[in-house]
């Protein structure tokens, strides 16, 4: 690994950050600056591309190449960018409305194609910039300005979409978990292919406390589990609880109780080809089973951009044209003298 030459400050732009005081985006931005320094790709080799929404203002606060685009389209724009200029490291920032409602189609196709970009999905379960409408991740019955009697629809669970689109990298963190955020963002950047990082984020104005059930300091250790590849799936204040197999499913047990020992606790394998267990882990929501944070799935696979470059090199070598004229002259032609 090349030695890191950059600090978090090298990735900060001179623009004042304009998110509301107390917004979860501040912490995520800091985590991203630190992750970029840890990765060590120079700012001029980094591009940050976003859609529309509060979180999509993020590129203005980065001293990298940046593009704040239009609502929902960041994944498509980032795809074109990466294929056109594959030497750049590309980050794509979306919120739950931008990425999963208006941009849902681009989101699943970017994941399916396995384009080598790092997709950050900042999930606050609300439309903040338009002042408080329910989003595609809002729970059924959620009351908002556009659902005054509660929503009558079920939400997306982002991880489920990622697995449905055959995603090979999924990680999750929470705005207040700075260390875990930095860890998963770094892992996302190191993964070759589409990496989706869901970041649970608090909207202090329109949806304050939406993730409190998970983030409340008193219960956080019981209601979350930090998954690390190769390590036992343990959680609780004193790591006294663990996840074990229960037929086709997993369940949480207390070590030393009901005959369960530490040997029964599952070891996390983020690199397992099958996503069967990854999906179960990603679907845990903090109620019966703890919400999983950390890198849940990280599997190598062919990337779209590498395959495009490979085909270009192969076909070019095979045909041997130096310019378009060669190509045309190799076809059907006739000469007029």
């Amino acid at each position: 690994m090349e030695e890191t030459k950059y600090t978090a400050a090298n990735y900060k732009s001179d623009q004042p950050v304009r998110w509301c005081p107390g917004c979860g985006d501040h912490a995520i931005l800091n985590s991203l600056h630190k992750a970029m320094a840890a990765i060590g790709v120079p700012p001029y080799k980094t591009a940050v591309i976003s859609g529309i929404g509060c979180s999509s203002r993020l590129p203005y606060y980065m001293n990298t190449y940046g593009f704040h685009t239009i609502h929902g389209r960041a994944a498509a724009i980032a795809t074109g960018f990466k294929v056109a200029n594959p030497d750049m490291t590309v980050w794509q920032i979306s919120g739950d409305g931008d990425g999963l409602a208006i941009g849902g189609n681009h989101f699943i196709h970017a994941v399916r194609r396995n384009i080598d970009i790092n997709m950050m999905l900042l999930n606050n379960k609300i439309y903040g910039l338009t002042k408080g409408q329910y989003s595609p991740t809002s729970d059924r019955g959620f009351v908002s300005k556009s659902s005054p009697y509660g929503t009558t629809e079920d939400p997306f669970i982002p991880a489920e979409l990622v697995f449905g689109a055959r995603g090979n990298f999924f990680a999750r963190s929470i705005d207040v978990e700075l260390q875990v955020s930095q860890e998963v963002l770094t892992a996302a950047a190191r993964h070759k292919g589409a990496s989706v990082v869901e970041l649970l984020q608090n909207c202090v104005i329109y949806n304050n406390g939406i993730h409190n059930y998970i983030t409340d300091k008193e219960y956080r250790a019981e209601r979350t589990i930090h998954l690390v590849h190769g390590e036992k799936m343990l959680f609780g204040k004193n790591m006294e609880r663990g996840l074990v197999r229960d037929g086709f499913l997993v369940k949480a047990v207390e070590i030393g109780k009901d005959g369960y020992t530490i040997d029964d606790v599952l070891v996390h394998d983020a690199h397992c080809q099958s996503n069967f267990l990854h999906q179960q882990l990603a679907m845990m929501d903090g109620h019966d089973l703890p919400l999983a944070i950390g890198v849940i799935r990280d599997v190598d696979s062919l990337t779209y951009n590498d395959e495009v470059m490979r085909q270009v090199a192969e076909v070019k070598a095979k045909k041997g044209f130096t310019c378009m004229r060669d190509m045309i002259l190799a076809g059907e032609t006739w000469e007029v003298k």
Partner: protein
Amino acid sequence: MLEDANVKTLDKVVVRFSGDSGDGMQLVGNIFTNVSAGIGNQVSTFPDYPAEIRAPQGSLGGVSGFQVSVGSEVHTPGDKCDVLIAMNPAALKQNCKHVKAGGVIIVDIDSFKESDLKKALFVTDDPFKELGINAQVLEVPVTALVKNALADSGLDNKSVLKCRNIFALGLVCWLFDRPLESALHFLKNKFAKKPAIYEANAKVINAGYNYGNNIHASVSTYRIETKDARPGVYTDINGNTATAWGLIMASEKSGRPLFLGSYPITPATDILHELAKRKDLGVKALQMEDEIAGVCSAIGASFAGNLAVTSTSGPGLALKSEGIGLAVIAELPLVVIDVQRGGPSTGLPTKTEQTDLMQALYGRNGESPVAVVAPASPTDCFTMAFEASRIAIEHMTPVILLTDAFIGNGSSAWRIPDEDEYPAIKPPYVPSEKVAECSWRPYDRDDKTKVRYWAIPGTEGCTHRLGGLEKDYVTGAISTDPVNHERMVYTRREKVARIADDIPGLEVLCDADADTLLLGWGGTYGHLRTAAQELCCEGVKVAFTHFRYINPLPLNTGDVLRRYKKVIVAELNTGQFADYLQSKYPDVEIRRINKVQGQPFLMSEIKEGVKNIIAEK
């Protein structure tokens, strides 16, 4: 040989092949075109096919046609044909109106049985009488002759019947004295992986040719004049391929890699097909998940430093509007190709129109100027795709290239340009001294052109942020300042307007001193020019000019228009370009000839329209 036959010598002839959409009419039309071009004829083609891939066999809705004009001074596929090949009664019914009086109709009489006639909704057993045909009809038992020729081939009946089109091709080659060797060469390439099918087709094309030779006394045959063309190496090219190649030329001349983000849509998809093949030249052509992703991936590629293009037709252009607006405010180069078809909505997907002009000019939110150009012919698609790319890159703006189904699918012989025939395209990179001084800001502009400099990501010292929010004129940071916004609106507008200094002026053809000026834009050039020439030959004084640069207009537009008492705009819509010109030049009285039938003009329609307007007091 032909010398003793009844030979008509014409400077050009028009042939129309027609049959079921599964009969291979497009294939034989293309081979006949290529063979003719190969012996030095000028060619112009008009594939006229249904939207349905396979409508019910023998039905009127399933008729596919391919018209080609070959000869000298060919600018259009012709109004009516000298020879019609009709493979079944439905094809005869749909196409007999396209035959000149005294022309020849060749039919496969084996497919004119009672049941065939019923499928084509004939009510009597004499389709020729029922249609009132007064052309020479050559009734050829094509099916029987093909079966006969392939009796020992071992092919199954279905494969045998698939060769009927090639028999017709052989017959037409005899009729026009085309060399069979050349046609065989194309067939060999086409069936390179199926030698048995090639052998069968080779037998059948000879059978068709020999049949013609044996019965030649009963029908007029033709010899087509050729005229010396400019020396060089030629190929047959359709407008969509020419468009793709023009983009590649622009990539070579600008040093910026070519990127296409697209989504399949008739009649533009062939551009995606061609560029997908051109990985052999390093082209990256992406089939995206929808039209919006097509334009957005191109915008991403443009920001990343590529010559970025998206290709579509009218409905797709509507979906791309917001994306194009982003490229306008971010001031990024972007080429948007709209191969126009009949609208609104899904409209007439396979038919031609010029009805997207207003959408191209104005179809976005906000003050959102873009450059618009429109090629005049299939081969001009090459030049104007190059021009669209040049303008996009050198002026840092989206450019919409408006072609149409007629020139996109139509083909002509095209001289392959020499290396130095097209100019170098110079991207407005950030001046190196500005990078060195760290004094560059993302919306710094060239004083003369108002063009923003282009910093290619990956360049040290040029990191910057673009976006859809309004930016400060000086710093490039987000700005909601009212006066700044107005200044930016006028700056973007002025930047596009100043492209006029960088494009050729209008040329006036035919009788430049006439009182009446006929003009058009885009793909109608061949028909309008030929009509104007024919009018002049008939003693009707008319000048002619044609627009390929729509926004901005050539600088001499006002001068040219004001020189004439009557200015007639002929276009395939209800008057969009006429309205546009009228808004720019309110003092000029604009008259109109319009057609919105999904079909190209006929020369006769234009001539009649011009004569009527001239006759008005």
